[in-house]
């Protein structure tokens, strides 16, 4: 089975010079956890997730804590997210992006997701332009049906 068999033919993306707020709006609208970042030619240059934005909004020592309840001042999160909402997504996106081609084996996309612990991979054409996305849920569905070969 190929990526093209399960990919979602949607090219919703955020441009690299658009704001974090726009990226959040796109994720909220589509109810997705991440969105491809593209340049003016719709070539994929990165990927930004809700986790990237959360990480950028919490104090740097947070990763050392086990729970948000240890945070002395939760307002800090609100202040930080308010501070970065107008920043460009290019400051917080993951790059270089992990991408796949539509004719790649689906098992290859599944392997990438497991190794990199990601839920969504942009699907690109030969010119690296966005043509859709493949999601972990999409792969799980066909795996449950025994068709992930």
């Amino acid at each position, binding site marked *: 089975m190929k990526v093209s068999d399960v990919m979602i033919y*949607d*090219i*919703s993306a955020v441009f690299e010079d658009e704001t974090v707020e*726009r990226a959040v*709006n796109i994720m*909220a609208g589509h109810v997705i956890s991440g969105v491809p970042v593209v340049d003016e*030619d*719709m070539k994929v240059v990165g990927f930004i997730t809700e986790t990237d934005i959360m990480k950028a909004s919490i104090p740097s020592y947070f990763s050392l804590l086990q729970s948000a309840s240890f945070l002395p001042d939760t307002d800090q999160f609100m202040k930080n997210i308010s501070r970065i909402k107008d920043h460009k997504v290019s400051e917080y996106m993951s790059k270089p992006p992990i991408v796949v081609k539509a004719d790649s084996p689906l098992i290859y996309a599944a392997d990438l997701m497991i190794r990199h612990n990601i839920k969504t991979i942009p699907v690109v054409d030969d010119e690296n*332009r966005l043509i859709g996305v493949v999601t972990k849920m999409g792969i799980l569905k066909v795996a449950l049906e025994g068709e992930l070969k």
Partner: protein
Amino acid sequence: MKVLTVTLNPALDRIMFIENFQINKLHRVPSFDKSILSPGGKGVNVSVALAKLGIPSIATGFLGGYMGRILIEELRKVSNLITTNFVFIKDETRENIAIIDEENHTITEINSPGPKIEEIDLEHLIRRYTMSLSRVEVVVISGSIPESLTSDVYVELVKIAKEKGKTIFMETRDKHISVLYNKGAVPDFIKPDFRMEYSLLGKELKDLDDFISQAKKLIDAGAKLAVLSYQVDKDIIVVKDGAWIIKPKVGVDISHVLGTGDTYTAAMVYRYLNGVGDALDIGRYGYIAALAKTKKARKDPPTLEEIEEFADKYVLERVI
């Protein structure tokens, strides 16, 4: 990808089949298959009809809220030939209702006005629209405009597409066509939507001369074709070389006309992309596709084979 369809005011369409429909009376839908939910709005419908003809397209526009998410999910189920690229907004996408009465051969449509579009969302749409143009040959801009926007948004979309050398097909109401005409942004293929009023370029159309003279103005302004619905099941096709009336040899059930305009536009795009005929032939092909659509009550567009069955079921008469 060959086509970009633009639907600024998409809708989740609810079609109900109710026999002997009357106002001010309780009706029950007899079964689930008599109440159908489908993605709608003219540009979206054109994408669906194009997919039936094997033509891939990008569908863009505004979507919002729960209705918007259902619409995009339903659209994805239609075909992998439709790639979606909608801008999500805060307001809810509208729902349109059509009640088809096959006993009395009537169709009653109730269309909602649509959501409020923020300036920033319009900016984002135009940027994505402009980027998508580099991937396509044809742009289809169809349907209504949400009330918070003016006809100027169509002027901008047409001008951007023209600057990039794209061929533009449009089906919309005269209030938008008039503005496009007055601002020098006339699309290449125009199909006025007369469901609300029979007027073109601000003039009420009363007789054949009115239809032809107003359509001629569009041709003189640069359009390659204007096709005008005339006397229910006839159309007037106006091109640079003259004007023709096209009419069916077979009976048309008026309760089956839902979606014929979108099928018409999609079939014209198909013919244009195949490059097999001139503007008159493109209009003729759109007409026979629309005729094929009227054999189905549902909003289901015809296949190429179904269109071919109607290839000789029409009469074309030159009027000037």
